[in-house]
């Protein structure tokens, strides 16, 4: 059995760890709150664009745009949203696992795809596996604004417009609840499912023309979807971290309990031994 002093040290260090995980849990909870608010305030923007695009796409069928049409796929690009920091449970691990599995299934060689990665952990993981990285952003703030990722959204959309890539997929953790985040894949480009949503029957005048508007609107829409996924991913990250930290705090609690028990036992044993030594010594004197 470990000595009294050793057990005491372990109890103290576990207590300190517990304090830290507890604090991180509370910080994540408040950040999660804000992330959810941000995701909510973003919602009307994308909804509105979607409405207008859908009405153009369904209204006059002669308006076409390369972003709305499928073409033979030679190269695929993925936008993958990871976190910058760890200690978020399975947040990054589950995303990278499904992502790599899917890539290996779909592509035979590394020339067929490229990844635009957000988040330091994701970048490191992908680099280690030798996945071709087209671009990266790390060190994003906890509450990102659209400006922070504008360059990357523009790059992705321009690459599609220049036919360097023929498909664009989005990978991120979709927030369901603090204890559940699902790895989600969305096909971003081409936008094929637009015309399905025709619930709002509104016919517009287009100034100057429907094509000119699609030209501006579709890139803006695609860019906003990437941003939306980032906000969703951030909420997931804090949810995952909060849950992981709350589990860590609970575990620390039960470790402390166990250690305290063995500490008391060891103390008891030491006292018993001392007493029997004294009694033994006294008996020898007589």
């Amino acid at each position, binding site marked *: 059995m470990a000595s009294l002093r050793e057990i005491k040290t372990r109890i103290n260090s576990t207590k300190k760890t517990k304090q830290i995980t507890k604090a991180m849990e509370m910080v994540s909870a408040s950040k999660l709150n804000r992330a959810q608010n941000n995701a909510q305030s973003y919602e*009307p923007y994308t909804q*509105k664009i979607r409405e207008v695009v859908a009405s153009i796409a369904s209204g006059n069928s002669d308006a076409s745009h390369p972003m709305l049409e499928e073409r033979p796929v030679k190269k695929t690009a993925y936008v993958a949203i990871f976190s910058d920091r760890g200690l978020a449970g399975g947040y990054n691990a589950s995303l990278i696992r499904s992502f790599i599995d899917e890539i290996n299934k779909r592509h035979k060689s590394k020339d067929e795809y490229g990844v635009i990665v957000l988040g330091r952990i994701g970048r490191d993981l992908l680099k280690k596996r030798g996945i071709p990285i087209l671009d990266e952003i790390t060190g994003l703030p906890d509450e990102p604004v659209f400006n922070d990722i504008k360059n990357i959204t523009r790059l992705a959309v321009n690459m599609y417009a220049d036919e360097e890539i023929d498909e664009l997929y989005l990978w991120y953790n979709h927030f369901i609840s603090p204890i559940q985040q699902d790895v989600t894949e969305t096909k971003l480009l081409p936008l094929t499912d637009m015309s399905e949503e025709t619930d709002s029957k509104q016919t517009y005048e287009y100034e100057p023309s429907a094509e000119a508007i699609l030209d501006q609107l579709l890139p803006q829409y695609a860019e906003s979807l990437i941003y939306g996924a980032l906000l969703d991913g951030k909420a997931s990250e804090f949810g995952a971290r909060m849950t992981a930290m709350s589990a860590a705090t609970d575990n620390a609690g039960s470790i402390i309990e166990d250690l305290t028990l063995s500490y008391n036992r060891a103390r008891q044993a030491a006292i018993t031994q001392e007493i029997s030594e004294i009694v033994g010594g006294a008996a020898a004197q007589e």
Partner: protein
Amino acid sequence: MSTLNVNVVTPDGTVYEGDVEMVSVRAQSGELGILPGHIPLVAPLAVCAARLKHESRVQLVSVSGGFIEVRPDKVTILAEAAETPSEIDVERAREAKVRAEDRLNRAKQEEIDFKRAELALKRANTRLEVAGK
């Protein structure tokens, strides 16, 4: 007097919401003035200061990159970035202006993205105009 409900929406949330009598913006094809009862219209916007007139007061909102959607009783401006005067960082806009001008000057000699610098200058000027500086 009849009014229009105006919403200025960006990915970071709603910037302005309210009832106004007239909206004027600069679309890419020219100035647009919208009164209540306008036919449904969609038009892409230039970088501009949108003027929202309400009871003889004019609220300015700087708008960059986006479009306007008009319905008879409702106007929505969707932009990548938009600010009301109080939200504009004047210092930053000034710096951006100087930077953009500098780039435009050098663009004659070097290979610099002329269009991008020009847009940046326009954005900075619009912001300064809206902020009243």
